[in-house]
């Protein structure tokens, strides 16, 4: 199972442009989603006139389903400069891949819980690291797309765009570089503070037990 938890209001505010289109995924039954907190935050953003529309669905990790649902929200999505996604990391990556020319940001961090991991089909994966990096990487996960799970850029081991560990696999950081260049946002990477993973957030079970 997994738990999604809202990022701080300040960090979400810092990501938003003038207008955001919001996508909520109520997802699979294995996910614990912070529905009330998300609603409250989204109401605040709506009241501030920052939201063009809200799409609430399940299984946004299924690209066909996502595409179908988005057909009814074309105007709202077009009007927005940013797409803010409330889901696990797989959902955010699916949306970022769909809107490859738009800034797509994660509003949640995803934590791991034992048990089934929900439906995570297709090519995207979320390691449920509890400190979602997708907002600094153009919506491509460095934890799962890089063999070394590096969080500060490519290692220099890739040859012709392929990973040194698996020649069948594209270098995740070259994908991130290209995505950010396409978005005109390579400065996000250049200016990002030094990233260091916090492995104590890796397992939400501990926190659940502590709060029991």
């Amino acid at each position, binding site marked *: 199972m997994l738990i999604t938890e809202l990022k701080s209001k300040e960090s979400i505010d810092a990501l938003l442009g003038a207008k955001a289109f919001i996508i909520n995924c109520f997802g699979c039954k294995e996910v614990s989603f912070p529905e009330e907190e998300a609603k409250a935050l989204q109401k605040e953003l709506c009241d501030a006139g920052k939201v063009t529309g809200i799409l609430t669905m399940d299984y946004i990790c299924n690209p066909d389903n996502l595409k179908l649902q988005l057909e009814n929200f074309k105007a709202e999505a077009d009007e927005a400069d940013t797409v803010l996604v409330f889901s696990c990391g797989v959902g955010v990556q699916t949306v970022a891949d769909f809107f490859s020319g738009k800034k797509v940001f994660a509003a949640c961090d995803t934590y791991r819980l034992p048990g089934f991991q929900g439906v995570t089909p297709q090519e995207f994966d979320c390691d449920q690291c509890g400190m979602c990096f997708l907002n600094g990487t153009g919506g491509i996960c460095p934890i799962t797309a890089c*063999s*070394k*799970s*590096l*969080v*500060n*850029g*490519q*290692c*220099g*081991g*890739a*040859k*012709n*765009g392929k990973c*040194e*560990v698996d020649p069948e696999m594209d*270098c995740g*950081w*070259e994908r991130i*570089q290209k995505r950010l*260049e396409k978005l005109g946002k*390579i400065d996000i*990477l*250049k200016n*990002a503070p*030094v*990233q*260091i*993973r916090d*492995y104590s957030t890796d397992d939400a079970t501990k926190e659940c037990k502590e709060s029991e």
Partner: protein
Amino acid sequence: MKVTDLFKEGKFVVSAEVGPPKGFHIEEMIEDAKKYLTHVDAINVTDNQSSVMRLGSLAVCIALKNEGFNPIFQMTCRDRNRIALESDLLSAAMFGIDNVLALTGDYTKLGDHPGAKPVFDLDSVSLLYTMGLLEQGKDLGGQDIEGEPPTFAKGAVVSPCSDSLDAQLVKMERKIKAGAQFFQTQAVFDSERYIKFAEIAKKEFDVPIQLGIIIPKNAGMCNFMNNNVAGIAIPAEIIDELKADKERAKAGITGTEIAARIIRDCKDYCQGVHIMTLGWEDKIPALMEQAGL
């Protein structure tokens, strides 16, 4: 002695590289260093290079320092978590090892212990940042370091002939922002490509760069590196040159000439050279002479 002080004096810094043996007897290595490396300014000691288990880099650095050499301690993030890396940095400081080259490290599967756990708790960027923290008397856990904090000449690497140069330049910038004070490059065989990189780097960053040099041994080695080693691009003309006279190539004469020519071509665009010998330490004196170093 910190290589950063040498750069500050305006010295053209020449370094070579030794790989520790798979064992703990280093007499031969030290003898070779005394024979061929007395004129270089510093010696890199590799850290379980290519993920092959060997004698430790720090131990060999200490041994070289005791013999009067100036070692550069290569540190990869493949085999140690942040606690071990910080601890080894303090150990280095205790022994007066003050040049550290931060590397992410090759993946474990590429070496001779393919089943080993790859660590990568930190990476080259966060390791540089960690060195900076220690210099300020703090560790990554936020605790104070007792006594006078250590200081390091903080080095990093970059691949000027990479097929993803843009990504390399971004990473280089992140390394500089994290505290990198000098760079050593992946081996360069294409002077024009290096010069192009060096011009961008000079415009964007103010940091000394040592040109990476490998003396090419033969056409087979070049083809292998072209196909398998990241950041290496050897032009066909160089491979043809090595093929032309196999005896000359085998004796290292052709390779030394090629390497000396690359150094001469790029000399105005770098602040030093870093020579990766791959067993050809004995060619270094001739190379330095031909390159005018």
